[in-house]
């Protein structure tokens, strides 16, 4: 009885039907932007991108467990889905891709997919991975000291978990029982280096024990599982019980970035097999089984997403580039 099974799973996750439809649309939107951005780099219209294909369930459903108005996200370069849930518009994402003056992330100063948006509570990231992890503990420390009822969620890959800052950031959060969720997207690859060369213990979540708080490993390809686990972690953080390390096992369907060729270190067979695990068709099938979606409404949704992305590309492409006269501005705050 697949229909009942899907409904039960949905009910158990804590998401209602409307939530599930929204999550699905965000996943479709993240995929469409990621795919379009890749094409734009191939056409030479955009200079760089970092695809998130395969991580939409993890990114979208985890961010969906936050209070978008009050909580903080410390992102990493594959957090596109989470950025959309947090309130970044497709237009803003495309302004970032094209490095335009009106890009709210950096006004064209950082490479694409390097997020930061003060009004939306998205704490700026650079390219030096792992530095974000103690930063998230610091954002959460400030929330605690200032009496903000806010949770901070920091996203990173399993490669970043090899950085010393991972250890230092988690240790501090554990000591002070800070309202923070450490969300590790474990796709098995740090650019070309597989998990087996990062750590003799492939399960990152086990490390949480060493910092005195819970760690869980979940199926990052299933948005219901992700939402449920992250909601538990967010509730725990908000109620003052401290951090959680959530490790979502995901897949990386595309190369590390538009500058990378993953066939140098992965086989086509392996990639083809991984593509079978794509979280999007899996979630679509579940929604269809529950009656929340049918072939027709799915197509309507996809068309609306494609139109939104195309319109944003047109808008961003035509937007003004940063004025070269401003290249030396804002080195120091006044």
């Amino acid at each position, binding site marked *: 009885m697949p229909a009942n099974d899907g409904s039960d799973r949905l009910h158990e996750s804590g998401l209602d039907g409307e939530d599930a439809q929204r999550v699905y649309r965000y996943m479709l939107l993240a995929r469409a932007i990621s795919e379009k951005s890749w094409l734009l780099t191939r056409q030479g219209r955009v200079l760089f991108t970092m695809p998130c294909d395969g991580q939409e369930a993890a990114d979208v459903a985890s961010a969906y467990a936050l209070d978008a108005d009050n909580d*903080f996200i*410390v992102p990493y370069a594959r957090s596109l889905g989470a950025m959309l849930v947090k309130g970044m518009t497709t237009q803003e994402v495309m302004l970032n891709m094209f490095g335009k003056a009106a890009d*709210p*992330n*950096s*006004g*064209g*100063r*950082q490479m694409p997919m*390097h997020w*930061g*948006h*003060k009004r939306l509570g998205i*704490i*700026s990231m*650079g390219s*030096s991975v792992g*530095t974000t*992890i*103690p*930063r*998230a*503990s*610091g*954002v*959460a*420390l*400030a*929330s605690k*000291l*200032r009496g*903000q009822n806010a949770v901070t969620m920091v996203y990173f890959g399993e490669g970043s978990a090899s950085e*010393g*800052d991972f*250890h*230092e*950031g988690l*240790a*501090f959060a554990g*000591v002070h029982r800070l309202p923070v969720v450490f969300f590790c997207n474990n796709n098995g690859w740090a650019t070309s280096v597989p998990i087996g060369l990062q750590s003799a213990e492939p399960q990152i979540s086990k490390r949480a024990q060493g910092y005195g708080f819970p760690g869980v490993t979940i199926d990052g390809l299933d948005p219901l599982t992700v939402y449920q686990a992250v909601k538990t972690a967010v509730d725990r953080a908000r109620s003052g019980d401290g951090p959680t390390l959530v490790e979502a096992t995901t897949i990386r369907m595309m190369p590390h970035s538009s500058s990378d060729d993953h066939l140098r270190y992965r086989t086509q067979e392996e990639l083809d097999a991984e593509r079978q695990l794509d979280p999007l068709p899996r979630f679509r099938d579940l929604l269809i089984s529950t009656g929340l979606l049918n072939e027709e409404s799915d197509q309507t949704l996809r068309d609306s997403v494609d139109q939104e992305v195309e319109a944003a590309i047109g808008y961003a492409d035509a937007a003004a580039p940063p004025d070269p006269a401003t290249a030396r*501005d*804002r*080195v*120091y*705050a*006044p």
Partner: protein
Amino acid sequence: MVEKRLIEAVREGLREELAADPDVFLIGQDIGINGGVFRVTEGLLEEFGPRRVIDSPLAESGMVGVAIGAAMNGLRPVVEIQFADFIFPAFNQLVSEAARMYYRTNGEFAVPLVIRAPYGGGVRGGLYHSQSVEAYFAHVPGLKVVVPSSPHDAKGLLKAAIRDDNPVLFFEHKLAYNTVRGEVPDGDYTVPIGEAVVRREGRQLSLISYGLSVHHCLEAAETLAAEGIDCEVVDLRTVSPLDTVTLLESVKKTGRACIVHEDNLTGGVGAEVAAIIAKDAFEYLDAPVQRVAAPDVPSFPYSPTLEDALLPGPSDIIRVARELAAY
């Protein structure tokens, strides 16, 4: 006004800012119950409690990373790095994150952060408790670097640093903590970051320095005056951004310049000051620009005979000043 030691002036600055602004908090190793290894923060945990004075894990990068995050969410952290020598694990957080946050977010996110660290030799601290590290950070756009020489400036500059919306590195000479005394006004005042001051007026030679070395310059200037060499002493106070106006005015007046610092010679602040003088005061110069600095040795070695052989002091300044006066 009461005469105070430099360490007392720093503590007073911290206490007043903690009392005045609930967003200010301190974080560092041993700064709480132990009051800091130099006792700079003595009594502050008792006065302000463990939420405002936080004993950090032994992790400089994490500590600075946490402070950056707290600063980006509305607080004004003051980090103590126990010795300037131990700042390097946090170098990436400072250079890749704090320094460029304002630039990379196009002015959206500022990082109001102070990093305090005792620096300098002469205390038999060996290779890892004696270094001057200001030049590494003076190179980095987005950071400010302050090195006070007097108790008055230590308090006033520290208050200015805490109120500044940029990351400020604040280096305190550990030998100066208890040996340098001076008048410190009670209550609130600031000394602006980026302004040098002439400590002694003179006509023939500009000695340009900062931190404890300023006192070596003043001592040397006394001896040189008795020989008829009239030195001006310029205290930079801030090594980034440099007050080029004050230092150039002095050199244009005297026609001779010697930059003095305890940091080693190559790539030091003295090199930058010399380049500024060479470009903007070239036609006023009567002699080559000279530098008195530690030789290019990794840091001051432990044994007193070895350290004393390398520490630049008044006698080195006097020797170079005589050469310049005779040029």
